[in-house]
């Protein structure tokens, strides 16, 4: 949930602020285009007026002039459309960049709650709706509204009574529009939610195909997916109704208004001065009524886009204003750097209190000190809090009380630039990223050289295997490139590539056969030489010289 009021307007304003020149140019082109669009009808009126008194020669010039005015209008329109596209793409780019920057500031708990499917949906689907709006709806709407005001003024100048009648009808159309909008908005929200859920099913299915085939769950999964799609379908039907009914109703109201105006105009007698018009003016007013409703109904046509974008932008605004984790403090970090050689313990946990949002208490005034160079193993039943402690040490979760310091520095405010030199974490499973082999290890960190990558590979004993690959470090890596054990070794290489002083190993022996486990332990021994080592294990015999700490529920030693 957003911590402060999330306003989509602020998001737009910030994005537009990045392109003041382009935005000004766009406004200028729109103004020119609106003004130029007034010219052809004006010119045509003059031509019609003079038609009975003109010559063939003059007619030819009139025709050319009329075409020239059309040409100008349409060329300006083409420029406008092109600029709107450029402007819209730049804005959506800017909003996506802001969202990417936000990813860095989100607390780790956000990822667990939201899931990557809905995050992806925010980046892809929601921004797409904005893109659609920028590239068509919003700009044209503004121009349309300007012409509505002009027409109202013209009708008032012809007949005050008919002008008042028109003003009575405009709110009816407006109220109807708002009602339809609200209905459509709700349907759009439901649809977006359903689409986000559906997005999540696809990558999950790809990853779990084996299970689906083995347990013959094809029809279960199809049903599961279709259930979600059906939700989206029903929501779409709602908004389709709104979309379909709006414009016909508006045109019907327009016909009622036109009929009423002509009935009043032909009353005669005492009403003549109030409603009376000539036949010529009647033709003009019929045309004007059509024109005044056309912009309104074209706004109606855009309802779906506008509503989708409103729903999407609200979610983006909520995302951008979601609660952030404490900021890293670069200056404090520098001080600590100087102090680090002094006798700070590698890990110092004081009075740690932590419970999950669901109330499950894991740590209650827990204390732990690990000196530099120590090898420590955490032991305990599944769910006792070993992994939670790791996440706390990594700074992914913030404790409710107490503090965790690494080499004298609070992990909550540890700057990114120092993180990798301080500690490396071997994750439970290898997180394959979308990149080549070198990038799997460096994680695209420019500070890590190829030489350091090779060194890390050498340490874990993978260098020979990598040298055999045709493209070496540039090889594209998929799940099939390496065996399970080799993947685990890559995880170690990733952790040690920046030569950290502290190593964290999560469930180091899980999922491995004994020899791979031994290879891993040897790699770990080499990797942790002269370093502090903290690991999670279910068995105690693995690290012979290390200290073993038992983690129990409600730890308070």
């Amino acid at each position, binding site marked *: 949930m957003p911590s402060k009021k999330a306003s989509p307007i602020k998001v737009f304003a910030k994005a537009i602020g990045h392109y003041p020149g382009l935005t000004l140019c766009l406004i200028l082109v729109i103004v020119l285009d609106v003004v130029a669009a007034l010219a052809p009808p004006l010119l045509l009126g003059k031509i*019609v007026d003079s*038609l009975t008194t*003109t010559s063939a020669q003059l*007619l030819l010039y009139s*025709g*050319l002039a009329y*075409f020239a005015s*059309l040409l100008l209008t349409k060329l300006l329109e*083409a420029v406008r*459309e*092109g600029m709107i*596209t450029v402007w819209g793409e730049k804005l*959506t780019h800017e909003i996506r960049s802001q969202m*990417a*920057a936000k990813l860095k500031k989100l607390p780790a708990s956000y*990822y667990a709650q939201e899931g990557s499917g809905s995050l*992806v949906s925010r980046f*892809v689907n929601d921004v797409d709706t904005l893109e659609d709006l920028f590239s068509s709806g919003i700009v044209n709407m503004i121009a349309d509204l300007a012409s509505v005001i002009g027409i109202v003024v013209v009708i008032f100048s012809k007949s005050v009574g008919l002008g008042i009648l028109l003003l009575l009808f405009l709110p009816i159309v407006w109220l109807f529009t708002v009602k339809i909008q609200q209905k459509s908005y709700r349907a759009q929200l439901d649809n977006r939610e359903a689409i986000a859920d559906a997005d999540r099913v*696809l990558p999950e299915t*790809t990853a*779990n*195909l*084996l*299970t689906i085939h*083995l*347990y*013959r*769950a094809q*029809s*279960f999964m*199809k049903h*599961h*997916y279709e259930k979600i*799609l059906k939700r989206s379908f029903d929501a779409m*039907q709602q908004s*389709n109704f709104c979309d*379909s009914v709006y*414009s*016909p109703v508006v045109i*019907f109201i327009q016909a009622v208004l036109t*009929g009423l105006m002509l009935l009043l105009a*032909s009353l005669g007698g005492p009403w003549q001065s109030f409603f009376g*018009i000539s036949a010529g003016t009647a*033709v003009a007013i*019929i045309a004007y009524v059509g024109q005044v409703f056309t912009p309104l109904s074209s706004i109606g046509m855009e309802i779906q886009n506008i509503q989708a974008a409103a729903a999407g932008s609200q979610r983006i605004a909520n995302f951008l204003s979601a609660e952030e984790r404490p900021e890293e403090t670069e200056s404090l970090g520098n001080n600590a750097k100087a102090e680090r050689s002094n006798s700070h313990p590698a890990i110092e946990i004081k009075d740690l209190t932590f419970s999950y949002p669901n109330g499950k208490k894991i740590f209650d005034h827990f204390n732990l000190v690990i000196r530099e160079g120590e090898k420590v193993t955490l032991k305990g*039943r599944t769910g006792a809090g070993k992994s939670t402690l790791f996440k706390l040490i*990594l700074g992914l979760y913030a404790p409710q009380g107490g503090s965790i310091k690494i080499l004298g520095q609070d992990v909550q405010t540890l700057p990114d630039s120092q*993180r990798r030199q301080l500690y490396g974490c071997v994750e439970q499973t290898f*997180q394959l*990223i979308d990149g080549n082999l070198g990038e799997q290890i460096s994680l*695209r*960190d*420019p500070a890590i050289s190829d030489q350091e990558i090779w060194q890390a590979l050498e340490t874990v004993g993978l260098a020979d295997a990598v040298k055999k690959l045709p493209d070496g470090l540039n090889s594209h890596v998929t799940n099939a490139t390496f065996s*399970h054990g080799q993947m685990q070794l890559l995880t170690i290489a990733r952790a040690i590539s920046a030569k950290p002083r502290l190593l964290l190993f999560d469930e180091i022996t*899980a*999922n*491995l*056969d004994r*020899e791979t486990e*031994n290879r891993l332990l040897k790699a770990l021994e080499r990797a942790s030489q002269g370093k502090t080592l903290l690991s999670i294990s279910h068995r105690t015999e693995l690290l012979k010289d290390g200290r073993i700490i038992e983690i129990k529920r409600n730890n308070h030693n």
Partner: protein
Amino acid sequence: MEKEEKSLRSYFTAQWKPLAVVTVSGIIYNVGMAAGPWFEGQLAQCLLNILEKKTTYFTMVRLALGYVLTIFLVQFMRYLKRLYVRKFANRTILTLRSQLYYALLTGQKQTDIGDVMTKALSDADDCAEGMRKFTTEIFDTGVVMVVYLCMLFAYDWRLTLLVLIFPPLAYVLAAGLKKPVTTSVANAKKATGELNKATLDRTQNALTYRIFGVEDSQNRHYERYLKNYEQKQIKAGVLINVAEPLYYIVSSISFILIIYLGGKNVLGQGWQAWNLAAFSTYLACFGKLAVKSSHAANLFNAVQKAEVSWHRIKPLLNQEAAPTKQVAKSGDLQIKDLAFSWDQKPLLQKVSLTAKPGQIVGITGPVACGKSTLGRIFLEKIPYKGSASLGGQEVKDLLDKVVLCSYQGHQPQLFSASIADNITLGQKEDLTLDQVLGDADLTPDLKEMPNGADTEVGDRAQLLSGGQAARVALARALYFKRPLLVLDDPFASVDEDTAQHILAALKANYQDRITLLISHRLEFFPQLDSVLYLDGDQTRFGTHAELIAESPGYRKLFEGGEPNAK
């Protein structure tokens, strides 16, 4: 599933009912479009007549009422047409998406998740949108253009012939722009796929990037994809958006002719004798025609866009679906002299074993001995030599027709659904859910969860611990009764008490199947019916006691050492 090749046309014929409504209402609406201007002219004429006292107020009342009713009918038809066109498009999206998903379920494994996503989401939408536009415009442009053309020819057929030279030129221009538009749209689509892949990478690995402090580098990397996406989208967008005004300009060259020649008609020097009203109507009619024809040219591009999308998803939709297999019959497992080489190096050699339903066979061995591979020969076709048979039938041949085993592997493979759904997968089996939850020692964990077995596991089982996820996968493997139960390292992330509990449950409650327990934790092996020790040509099969006596490698491994250590 139906065998016939899926074509875009089939999606139209599949929904002939809503399309029939669209056709009827579309024709009535578009023919009725002419009624509006006609009534409006009559209304103005009537007002003039009243002002000149030629007719009474009652005529106006009748006319106005007729006008409002006619518009109501026409607009009601329009509403029907719009609603059913959208229904059709919506239904098409649903069908396309669920067919794409089915293709994903039954087809070959797709490695490119980002691309599958773009295909399924974006292409299906574009396709349906193109079909919707096509259906709409056939009536709104096609029928209306015919109506207008008839009117124009009625006023002055020679002028109309001349004037109609230019709108087709707009189509020629549209055809010329076809290639660059198609190319740029395809490029934009590609950039979208790449961006989606990068988005997936950035969000799914966000926590890995965080703990290594490299989020800034990732954002810079992501920015490159955003830049590329922006450029490709601008190119495609500008080409598409600029096209329509250009078409209009080309078709409106005709206005020069209309004003010149039509004006001469009014002056009495032309082919026909016109009054001012005829001149205005002709001009207005042609104006609408020009706008319509520029839409039609644009429609052309929308259809192309749909075609690009269609060609991308067509191979996916048309690939052959693998039928859902039956479950194999129970029987004895007999492996005889099985061997398998991987990358020309022998991995499995001289593997022999026999097992009857109710027995648990422990499988172990030194590193890279092929334990997991042996487990996988019951899952997928692996070209082994020798023989492995179940109930007398060769496993390799059986795999084409039936499912042999349930399996717990290294990855829990859970879905974002409830724990119960993850275990039963919507299917009814002989065992109850509670039974397998208890056997996998999940009952104590469930007591702490808010909704018990109905608790959602979250995206990628994030709401469970690693050990809990593994045990849910184990419970699922137990739930489905198969002749073989293959457990690859089930005790990897559980403590000793839990492991003992699970083993006791396996022995007590799963007498109807053969259990292959692949593990490197040998403390439980003395309790098993037999043991297969895999170690190249030192491979042995027997009871635990036999192997301890006969196989120095197994003995060493059991005592906690390395069999190959000298």
